[in-house]
């Protein structure tokens, strides 16, 4: 087990280098750079742009830029944002935290709702309840998140017109005057803002999880050892939770590690539409503006977390499934 871990961690290095260098290269292959846009500003002299390009190090060969970036990375420095004129980590850190809240809450929804609903369906297959949930699940998979969020915002605006108040806020992460609230009210306020977008973010995943869980549990329930357990006279609860679910859930656990990078990479366009100050709006800005080091910083962090997440997923698998051994 220990040797396996070490080997995996050593594998991490070339993967990380390859991924970040590729990202660096592709970002630089795009025509122009952060300063190209400035060239169309009639107020800025070309000399100034040349000077800035030099100051930003953008006039050096890509490989040299990458090596310098790598060297700084070893000192824990992800580089400097052109847009913000600040260290990249300082720029993305608050956004990571914000995205974490949203994605964290959505993962809670995912498992808290997805698993029980899937099990419920598996126990009562081909009933009206099963069909109704399946219909909703297909709807959830099909509808694009950002569009679903837009519909909800539209409904909230109409609700506000009709009643003068709204059950959920229309976008944002905190209420006005947030800074003057006591900590527990702040927490409630953020959660109140997060509920709707978190639910929207997870609709597709939740829908597919219920489908997967339904299939897995149904499959396991048809196996011989379950029949044996039932024949022994074990109560349904024990059969289901101790024998069936533990086996059925293994493939789901294997995917948990993959969630790690999504935790920081943000909730996608829902963040833009719901006006949630997470990673996605920042990343979109950075891509539009060709803010090189913010882009590479985000890619480097996600790559790292993806690799670590996969390792964690494999280890978790060994914990829940005694048949799996790493050597």
């Amino acid at each position: 087990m220990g040797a396996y871990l070490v080997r995996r961690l050593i594998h991490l290095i070339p993967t990380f280098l390859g991924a970040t260098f590729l990202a660096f290269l592709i970002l630089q292959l795009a025509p122009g750079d952060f300063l190209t846009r400035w060239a169309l500003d009639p107020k800025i002299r070309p000399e100034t742009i040349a000077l800035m390009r030099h100051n930003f190090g953008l006039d050096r060969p890509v490989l040299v830029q990458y090596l310098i970036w790598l060297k700084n990375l070893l000192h824990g420095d992800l580089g400097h944002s052109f847009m913000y004129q600040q260290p990249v980590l300082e720029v993305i850190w608050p956004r990571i935290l914000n995205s974490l809240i949203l994605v964290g809450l959505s993962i809670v929804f995912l498992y808290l709702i997805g698993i029980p609903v899937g099990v419920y369906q598996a126990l009562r297959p081909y009933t009206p309840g099963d069909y109704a949930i399946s219909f909703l699940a297909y709807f959830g998979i099909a509808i694009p998140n950002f569009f679903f969020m837009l519909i909800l915002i539209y409904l909230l605006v109409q609700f506000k017109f009709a009643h003068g108040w709204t059950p959920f806020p229309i976008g944002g992460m905190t209420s006005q005057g947030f800074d003057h609230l006591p900590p527990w009210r702040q927490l409630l306020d953020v959660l109140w803002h997060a509920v709707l977008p978190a639910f929207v973010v997870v609709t597709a995943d939740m829908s597919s999880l219920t489908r997967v869980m339904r299939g897995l549990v149904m499959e396991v329930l048809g196996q011989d050892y379950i029949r044996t357990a039932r024949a022994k006279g074990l109560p349904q609860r024990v059969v289901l939770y101790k024998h069936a679910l533990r086996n059925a859930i293994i493939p789901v656990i294997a995917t948990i590690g993959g969630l790690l990078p999504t935790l920081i990479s943000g909730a996608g366009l829902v963040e833009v539409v719901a006006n949630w100050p997470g990673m996605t709006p920042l990343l979109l800005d950075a891509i539009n503006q060709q803010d090189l080091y913010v882009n590479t910083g985000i890619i480097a962090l996600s790559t790292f977390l993806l690799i670590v997440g996969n390792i964690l997923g494999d280890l978790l698998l060994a914990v829940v499934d005694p048949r799996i051994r790493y050597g």
Partner: protein
Amino acid sequence: MKKAIIGTLALTLALASAALAQAFTWPASWTTAKPGEAKRGGTFVEATISDFRTMNPFLSAEADSIPDRMTLNGIGLVTRDPTTGKWIPYMATSWKVSKDQTEITFKIRRGMKWSDGKPITADDWIMTYRIHMDPKVGSNLRDSFFIGDKVVKVEKIDDYTLRFVYPKPDAEAFAIASYSPWPAHVFGPVYEKQGADGIKKMWGLNEDPGKIVTWGPFVVASYRPGERVVFKRNPYFGEWNKDAAGNPLPYLDAYQVNIVKDTNAELAAFLTGEIDQMNPTTVEQIAQIKKAINAGKLDATLKVNASPIASSQFVVFNWNKKSDPFKERLFRSAKFRKAMSHLINRKAVVEVVYGGLGTPMYGSVYPVLTQWINKDAPKYPYDPEAAKKLLAELGFTKKDAEGYLVDEQGRRLEFNLATNAGNKQREEIAKLFVDEAKKVGVKINFRPIDFNTLVGQLLSKGPDRPFDAIIIGLRGGGLDWPFGSNVVPCRGNLHMWNRSGTCLDPRETLMQYYYYKGRTTLDFDQRVKIGYKLQEVEGELLPIVYIAGPNYHTAWNNRIGGWHPDKIISSIWRSGELPLLYRAK
């Protein structure tokens, strides 16, 4: 409302010698509120689409940054009177221009204080200037202190007198002098000790707001990344800024800007009253606001088509095509470009591209700058017959088998047209142009390409540049001399049609002559006359074929009062002055 500005000369001069704090009185003509009507207190909330980058005035690069918002859009000694467009004293009380017009001496208003209570003196302007000028800081304002290659100097005469020394008389002398001062007692010690690096580390977005100091009406109270910035009233501002009734300004306790990354979300926020003001840009947004107002769900005021916006869309043809002499000769011909202008159906562009909410353009001066527009300059409006006639004069009289015009040697009238992919408005303009051209037998191959590639082609230099024609736009530019310093002169890097480095057409040389003549004329009315002449030559040469631009619309929630009277609501002066806004309901 973002643009916010100030003052009356007569009143301030009268008060100048008297009081300890020489007050600036905000004229009653800048607001719809009657004197004494405005109440104190409350918050005004607006939205912005792009997150803030920094609180540091020496690093901020974009309009409506936090430093801009704290200083009424970066004004200082002087400001513009929106009712006349002329410069008036603001943080100065008066000025004197030297005989050769290369020196302006400003008397600084006495009794002004920073938001931390320290006095504002000449040293603040000097230190601010020094830091902006340090190339290692990388300030965006540095270039504004250059006239050509020469630097404008700022000198301290005494604590309350400043002298600006210009290399030559300049149209933008007052614009240059209007830069906003920042506290020398805050930035000075850091700059002396740590230089540019020290300055760059200051006032980032994670700075403690308690350390932010400004002279303006509001100072940062809190910032939440990607969410909002809240400003609170600077109590010292009211000591020298009064309304027409003598009350201290601003009226509001606080001013808040929400960061809303999505225009749908912004509209939702305005419709539900979460923000007090917005500038709708599309027909759909305007329709939604109108509907909500008419249904009695939203108590707001909507001003549609208040003015054109200072931005333009145009076609530029490449004069430097050594490898293709046929096209080069064509693109260098004014007749050809006039024919192309006759083929652009600007009315259709306004209808289709801007949903009827736009203004046609025929020259480089934005239509919103009404006092600058020479109505008698030549125009070439939509007229396919006139286009045919001009093309026939160029030798394109016959058509080939596919119906396209050819010259004597059988060469087809055909060229490529590019714009940046993803810009729907420009793509629509291009399609309209292609269709109209096809009708008279001109073949245009339209292909949208990546923005940065496009800019690269546009800015390329030399005798052989890699494009035929490009549709692109520019925005911004001066109110003092609305011709681009790097567009009109033949060596400018935005002299997009001809980047051979020299003037190729005598009319280019003449335009360049008028450009510099106007640029070095300090007197406004004289300058306008030179601008008129420049536009006449421009109309003859037509180096760029202008198409149209969008209009400015604005809407505000009626719980906020004190907005501009209708005649000064425009994309230049915007909808109101921040210090004059008040909570009406």
